[in-house]
Every structure is written in C-alpha cells, then in structure tokens.
C-alpha cells in the first residue's frame, strides 16, 4: 500500500509538470503560427478596427504568458472555454457576423463538444484494438513459439505488409470493396454501430504490426530463459510451461508497449481514420477546429490527449511493477 501511494504521488507530480509544459508548447505554437482566428470569426469584410476590438476583447492581444496563465486558471476549474466558431445549438456560425453580433455566450462550450465526441472515439478505439488483437495474438504467438520456422516468417510478412499500407489508402480501398461495391457495410458518417466496423478495421491494420512484433519477440525471449528449460527438466510439458508461465511473463513487456507506443499510434490513427470516414469523434472535431482556427478546441484536445498519454503510461508502469516487483519506478 505504501508502495502504491509513493508511486502515484511521485508519478502524478511528474505527470502534471509534463502536461503543463505540453499545454504551454501547444498554446504558444497556436499563437505564433500565422493564421488569425479573428479573421475567421468576423469574416473577410470586417474592418481592421473591428478586428482589433474583438481580438482585444477575446484577450488575444495580451502577452502569451498572461493568456496562458488565465487559461490554466480556467482549466483547473474544469473549464476549457468556449468555441470561437461553433454555436451552442449545434451548427457552426462564423464568417459573416459583425463585431457586435459576436457573443461568446452563444458559443458551444469546449468541454461539452468534447464530451459529445468522446464516446464515439472510444467506441472506435475499443473495436479497433479488439480487431487488432484478433489478428495479432495468433500470428504473434505462432511466430514467437516457432522462431525461425514458417510461422515466424508469416509474422514478418504480415507485419511488414500491414505497416506498409497507408491508412488513408486502406480506408478508401475498404470503402470501395465493402461498402460502395458490395453494399455490405455502411461507411461514411455515423448512424449506428455498423458505421464503426470499417473504420475499426483500418485502425486494426495500423495497430497490429506493432503488436505482432511485440508478442513474438517477448514470447521468443521467454522461451530462451533458464526457467523454461528448468520447467521442462522437472517434467512439465511444453504446453503447460507456455500456458502457465511464458504467457504471463511475456505480458509485462506487452503492457509497456501499450503505454509507450500504442496509445500515441492509436491517437494519431483515430484522427486520420475519423477524418477519412467523417466519423464524428474527437479527431474530426479537432481537424475541423484546425481549419477554422478554433484555438480553444485544439488546446483542450492537445492537453487532454497528452494527459491521457501520461496517465496511461503511469498506470501501465504501475501494473508492470506490481506484476514484477524487480522493476524500479
């Protein structure tokens, strides 16, 4: 128990610092990269004076550290501000109002927008990971248990093939084959669970090579350990050794992989896949926000994404240190 408390206190404090720094980087980046949100809010016809007035009102002309301090103050109370563009009633306004007509109160709150989109993304991610496991576990196990034999080669071929297929292309090909040509599955937008299936397949193709490699390397490494031979010498069958010991020990590096590599890949994959399929999740929300210079949404997503990354890494480390106490934190 004391171990757990010490672990979490230490890691949470580190994590908070990292998330704040990430927030600062993104916040600054948004404001130094060219592209003025006021121009988009007020439209091309607005006068320079009106632009300045609005910018000052929204606080975009204050020094960056002042803006950042104000923003972080809000974030600690759970408030990520309001969208520049999207109306509270849905639909996006912008581009045509004059300065007086723009009222932040009528804009959708960022936390609300994210809360609406998040379940869709989680559903897609969960199904994608499930599909990826379905592919990766048999192939990876086979490759690990029979290193140097044909299942090992199969693992190399499948993972080399899958990493070589760009997700944008796989997405379009699957739309063509499974939806446009045959009409088996719906593809674009979201009107029910079936709309998640093709996007999840694309995600799974992107995720499975890393899994296959990790599973096979980790299983093969465990077969080479002394304890495996000792077990065989003591009369345990190979099957028992694999089922009872190798799989459990091989799970630790797999967990680590989940934290370090998979979550980053998953996030990136979600963004692109949602964009291809017009799937109404976080990725779609963010990509639209970027094109509309909707700073509050981008900031919030970046902060939440990095917080999720840090938190998952922490949990993964905790899980692997509890499984294997030899690992230090």
């Amino acid at each position, binding site marked *: 128990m004391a171990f757990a408390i010490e672990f979490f206190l230490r890691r949470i404090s580190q994590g908070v610092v990292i998330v704040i*720094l990430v927030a600062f980087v993104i916040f600054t980046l948004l404001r130094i990269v060219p592209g003025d949100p006021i121009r988009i809010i007020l439209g091309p016809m607005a006068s320079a004076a009106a632009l300045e007035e609005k910018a000052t009102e929204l606080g975009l002309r204050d020094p960056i550290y002042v803006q950042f301090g104000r923003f972080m103050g809000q974030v600690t109370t759970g408030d990520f501000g309001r969208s520049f563009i999207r109306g509270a009633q849905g639909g996006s306004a912008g581009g045509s109002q004059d300065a007086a007509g723009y009222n932040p109160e009528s804009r959708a709150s960022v936390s609300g927008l994210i809360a609406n989109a998040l379940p869709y993304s989680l559903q897609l991610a969960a199904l994608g990971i499930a599909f990826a496991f379905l592919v990766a576990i048999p192939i990876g196990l086979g490759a690990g248990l029979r290193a140097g034999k044909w299942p090992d080669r199969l693992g190399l071929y499948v993972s080399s093939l899958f*990493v070589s*297929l760009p997700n944008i292309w796989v997405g379009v090909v699957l739309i063509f084959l499974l939806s446009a040509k045959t009409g088996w599955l719906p593809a674009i937008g979201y009107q029910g669970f079936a709309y998640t299936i093709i996007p999840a397949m694309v995600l799974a193709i992107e995720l499975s090579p890393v899994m296959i490699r990790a599973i096979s390397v980790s299983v093969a490494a465990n077969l080479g350990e002394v304890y495996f031979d000792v077990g065989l010498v003591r009369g345990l069958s190979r099957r028992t050794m694999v089922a009872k010991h190798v799989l459990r020990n091989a799970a630790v590096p797999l967990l680590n992989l989940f934290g370090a590599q998979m979550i980053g890949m998953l996030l990136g994959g979600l*963004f692109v896949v949602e964009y291809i399929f017009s799937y109404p999740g976080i990725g779609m929300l963010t990509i639209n926000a970027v094109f509309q210079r909707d700073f509050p949404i981008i900031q919030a997503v970046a902060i939440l994404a*990095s917080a999720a990354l840090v938190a998952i890494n922490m949990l993964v480390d905790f899980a692997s240190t509890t499984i294997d106490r030899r690992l230090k934190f």
Partner: protein
Amino acid sequence: MTSSTATAAGTTAAPKTKYRGVTARILRRAWGQTEMKVAASIFLALTLLTLFGPYIIDASATKMSVANKFLPPIFMEGGKLPHFLGTDQLGRDLLLRSLIGLRNAFAIGVVSVVGMFILGCAIGIYSGYRGGLTDVILMRLTDVQMSIPVVILAITVLGMSRPSPLTIIAVLILASWPVYARVARGVTLAERQKEYVRAAKILGASDLRIMVRHIAPSILPPIAFVAVLDVARMMIFEAIFGFIGIGIQPPTPTFGTIIASGTQYLLNAWWITIVPGVLLALALGSLNLMGGVLERARNHILQGGE
C-alpha cells in the same frame, strides 16, 4: 576503420573469424536472406523507374487532356498507351503522377530522417555525456515532446500555416527526434565509461572531439534499421498530410492528393485511388521488409549467432 578492412579481406577468403566487425556480420547475415534480396530488387526497380520513367514515358503528369480523362490501366478494356496505369479525372498520366509523388515522398522521408537523426543524436549525446542537471532537463524535454501525438502537432502547425516541403520536414523532425535522442543517450552512457574514451580524455581530446569522433560512430549500428523503418513511416505521414490537404500543395502530385481526389470517382474510376496506393505500398513494403530483416539479423548476431 579496422573492422571494415578486416571485412574486405574476410569476404573473399570467408574464414569464420570473430574478428569481423559486428556491422559487417549483420549486413552479411541480412543479405543471406531471400526476403532481403526480393525487397532490395523491388526497391531498386522502383528507384530506376522513378529516375528514368519521366524521360521514357511519353505523357505528362501535370498537363490536362480532356480527351484522355478516366482512361483505365492498359490491362483493362479501353486502356491505351502510353498511359500504362490509366489517367485521372483531368486526363493526367497516373503512373507519372505516382512516380513523381514517390520521388517527393521519398525525398521528404530521407531528409526528415537524416534531420531527426542528427538533432536527436546531438541532443542525446550531449545529454548523456554531460549528465547531471543538463541530462535531467533534456530528458524531461523528450518526455514532453513524446507526450504530444505526432498528428496533433502536425495538423496544428501545418493546418495553420502555409504548408511547404520545408515546413513538412521541420514538423516531422520536431515530432520524432526524441526516439533518436533516447537511444543516443543510452549508447553514450555505456560508451562514456569505456577505456578508450577515458584514454582519449587523458590524451587531451576536447569534449566536443570525444563526442563527435568517438561516441557518435557507435550510435549508428543500433539505430540504422530504425532509420530505414522511419523513412517509410515519414512517407506515410507525407501521404496523410496530402490527403488532409496540409501536405505539399497542388499542382505538384503527391500520393495523398491523388488518393483524395480519386475518392470522388471511386465507383466509375477506382484505379485513380487504388493504383497509386499499390505503388506506394510496394515502395513502403520493400523498405519495411529490409528494415525488418536487418533488425532480425542484428538480434540474431547479438545473441551470438553467426
């Protein structure tokens, strides 16, 4: 130096001596695999096609031709020369467009990987060599950088500014250097303790000289295959950026924009999307297979295999 001369002598006489350098043994083992030869041949063929195709094929990648639009590839009914892989919605030759896209993607991939390698190694070596507070700060920095998903960073920067090959490369470098920094730091920590580094120091070599001349060369072998795989990864990113509309801008052909434009004609002219993708997948596949074989060869040799 000694290892490479030893190899040159060793390959002709081929004695199984342990004096042969590790790198040479890895390459030798990798080259012995059929997969490596297949992948290298595909890669070479694509390179030649990319280099000379535009001079041989009598068609244009950018000139529009209404009469020739939506021509299917020549293996289908209605296809005609010189459009081997058909034409797109504006009558432009798809093979040529794909080849130019491949060239651009490959150039961006290689330049950005070289960039992230140099930046990452410089920071990693410095961090590991200095140690102390410098090390702590720089490694926290890699944590921060690694906590921002690549795609979020890229669409933020590229979506807001005007994308050009240079900004694309900069974003890719910015997003991916920490991996190299981590590996370089790890190698440096190990090398720093070794006799030859201490000897160099006693002989009066400056820190900079030790870092550049003595430590840097030992980082390349463990990371070379990562770099090969990363070139392919960066090419995929380039395609994704093009697809979203934040990559190299038209009229320069890129895979992303070709695939994106083809989606509107999927039912009637599927080849606009499918064909360039096959070509890109072939190029990426050969790179990934080479990287994969190299990695396995390395593991094999390091575990004591021959």
